[in-house]
């Protein structure tokens, strides 16, 4: 006995084709199965490989079935970055890129195509945290990546991981504060990858007190980004998908408890991104900032704060509206989207990714 289309597991949502010889109509349902209706009105629902599921029609043309219901083009997906064990007690929702969780996890819904396949991406400070996660998500989406960091060992490790995701990788140990070394790296990266489409300026000196911190945040957070853009421009101009993302911080937007160079320098960075978005728009290059709130990962700042200043950590955690801190991967996915051709209309924005940590109305 045949069940109506909207009973049972899935409705007709996808491709609908008529068999040019038999006249049968084949339609894909959202659970990946295929519904067949013969010209005489008999119907059946089948797995994409031809196995009968239900309905009075017991057999259908397996070739057309395969075409209508076959697995969608699967994007290259590596084994996602592992979530940190401690995020304030709230489980991190798994991002499964459109997998429906049905039959053997094989079938996928139509995914939004980020248009990243084959793009060449440079991420600074990418051996850990947000930088590493960002490079990983780019690699999973078919990009080739150039990365730098100060420590050789972690960098080699990161490069290996990215390679295992199918990316071509160019890596170099660089001190971002060293203007010449930074520019040489960016140029070498562009040459090695045969161009650059996307630049993510992620390096930061982090928070700290005193005049030394002002200098370090200026040299690394601000000038690091400025110099990267300068050196990358010749490549970005050649690209048909040129885009730059700066990593800002919510510390630039709301008072965090202590006045620091970090907060002010991130504000400078956001302002500069906005300027660049105007001046580079005519050359087809988009510039945006992503400002993360507290991001927790092993070996990261918030882990240290949790141990050294538990009260401050608890306060920050309590301020996160979603009840937990962010993960590097959650920030990374935002960066990757914003950098991708899928965000072609977005430029000059400062996208706050903080799980409700900041309380202002973002008009």
């Amino acid at each position, binding site marked *: 006995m045949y069940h109506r289309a909207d009973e049972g597991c899935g409705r007709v949502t*996808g*491709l*609908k084709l008529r068999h*040019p*010889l038999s006249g049968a109509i084949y339609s894909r349902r959202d659970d990946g199965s295929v519904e067949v209706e013969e010209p005489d009105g008999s119907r059946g629902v089948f797995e994409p490989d031809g196995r009968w599921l239900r309905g009075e029609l017991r057999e259908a043309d397996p*070739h057309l079935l395969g075409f209508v219901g076959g*697995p969608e*083009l699967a994007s290259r997906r590596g084994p996602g970055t592992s979530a940190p064990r401690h995020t304030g007690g709230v489980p991190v929702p798994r991002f499964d890129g459109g997998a429906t969780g049905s039959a053997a996890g094989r079938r996928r819904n139509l995914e939004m195509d980020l248009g990243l396949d084959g793009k060449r991406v440079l991420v600074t400070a990418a051996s850990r945290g947000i930088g590493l996660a960002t490079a990983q998500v780019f690699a999973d989406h*078919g990009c080739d990546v150039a990365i730098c960091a100060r420590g050789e060992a972690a960098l080699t490790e990161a490069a290996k991981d990215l390679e295992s995701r199918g990316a071509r990788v160019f890596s170099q140990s660089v001190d971002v504060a060293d203007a010449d070394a930074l520019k040489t790296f960016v140029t070498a990266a562009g040459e090695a990858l*045969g161009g650059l489409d996307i630049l993510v300026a992620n390096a930061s000196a982090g928070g700290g007190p005193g005049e030394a911190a002002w200098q370090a945040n200026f040299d690394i957070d601000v000038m690091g980004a400025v110099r990267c853009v300068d050196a990358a421009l010749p490549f970005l101009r050649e690209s048909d998908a040129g885009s730059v993302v700066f990593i800002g911080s919510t510390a630039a937007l709301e008072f965090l408890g202590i006045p620091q160079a970090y907060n002010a320098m991130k504000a400078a960075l956001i302002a500069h991104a906005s300027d660049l978005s105007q001046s580079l728009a005519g050359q087809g290059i988009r510039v945006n900032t992503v400002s993360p709130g507290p991001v927790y990962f092993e070996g990261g700042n918030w882990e240290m704060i949790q141990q050294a200043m538990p009260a401050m950590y608890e306060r920050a955690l309590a301020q996160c509206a979603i009840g937990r801190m962010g993960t590097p991967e959650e920030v990374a996915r935002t960066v990757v989207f914003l950098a991708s051709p899928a965000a072609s209309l977005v430029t000059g924005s400062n996208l706050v990714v903080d799980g409700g940590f900041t309380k202002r109305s973002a008009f």
Partner: protein
Amino acid sequence: MAIEPLAPARVGEGERSQGLSYQELLDTDTRTVPEVLRLQSARDLPVVRVPIERYVSREFHDLEVEKIWKKVWQFACREDELAEAGDHVVYDLADQSILIVRGDDGALRAFPNACLHRGRALKDRAGRSKALRCPFHGWTWSLDGRLQEVPCRWDFDHVDRDEHALKPLPVDTWGGFVFVNPDAAAAPLADHLGSLPRHFERWPLEKRYTEAHVARVMPCNWKVAQEAFMEAYHVVATHPQILHGIGDANSQYDAWDHFSRAITPNMTPSPHLKETPAEQEQLDAMMNRSLDAPPTVQVPEGMTARQILAQVSRMQLQGAVPSVTELSDAELADSFYYTVFPNFHPWGAYNRITYRFRPHGNDPHRSIMEVLYLAPYQGRKPEPAPVHWLDVDEPWTEAPELGSLAKVFSQDTFNMAPIQKGLRAARHTHVTLGRYQETKIRHFHCLLERYLEA
């Protein structure tokens, strides 16, 4: 084991489909059609039945290795995989392994991939190195094959440098493809290719880069796999969704010395259809349009789907292909699939596809199918895509670089295991081939026969 001639082939009236012939379709072109598309080969191939044994027996596989794979010119890699001095590629087939190296002098050389000391394969995979150094004891040859270094030379007084030079094998290039021949006494590549280069004069394959390269293990004999891509006869049953936009049974088939060609016209309705579809329906079939979705491209009044498709392709190729405006509708719309004996399938015009099929190790029931997309480019030649390997149970759709064709390949692959199963189970002894539409397969088996007898 021999093929059985039944009758001489004549293709005259009544021996091909009633539809428009390809030559008639060419007469409607909006541009001048290149001469090569006007060529039609002589049709003196015997109609054949092929022994099933050829697809399922290990003995026949061994014979094939001896008589064909050890004797024939075969496509090993693309030339851009060997761009710099020291670049090398390992080409494996059954038990053979050939190392192809770019020398300091820029020349390509091929050597058996075996150390002359105790035999280890010199290289495990493609790479770049200054010399050829065996990882076992470190014997080292220069890129041109001269023995350079033997650790503890005192222990090998008896080893003569010249005698222990790597023995070169014939290697040559055409169309940006590197060919090798395991037979040191082989006739030149040019003899094997015959008039093929003339066919490709207008579509120089050396001016392409490897946009995608996917290799998949197939659950069938290599000939089963390749023969599924040598005719359009299977379209009606295997790819019914495209019948509105493909002149499957109106295809033209030709065979010359060592190569054959099929031409399947697109954007012209299949003669299998009972009613002639509108021009828009022909285009929709190709674009895989849903019944309830608006058309992606609209065929304007007074134009045919074929002209529109050609016009869109001309726009896409602008810049990458010189004098694109002169290309005929046929070159932009139709499929020209060549087979160079034994296993190399470059496509003509701008379709991008090249296939290669070969045995998987020595298993007659497994093979490797490769799809290369060779795309024209503007400016600097992009790096070739690395090989993306898919295992026997990974669908083509796992290779997003194949785009929408992945689904069509999946339909073809859907048949492979059941063909092998049927052939293994068969109690009859031969497969039967069509007189016209399976010309390319018949031609292949005639050549195979010739090699077996040599």
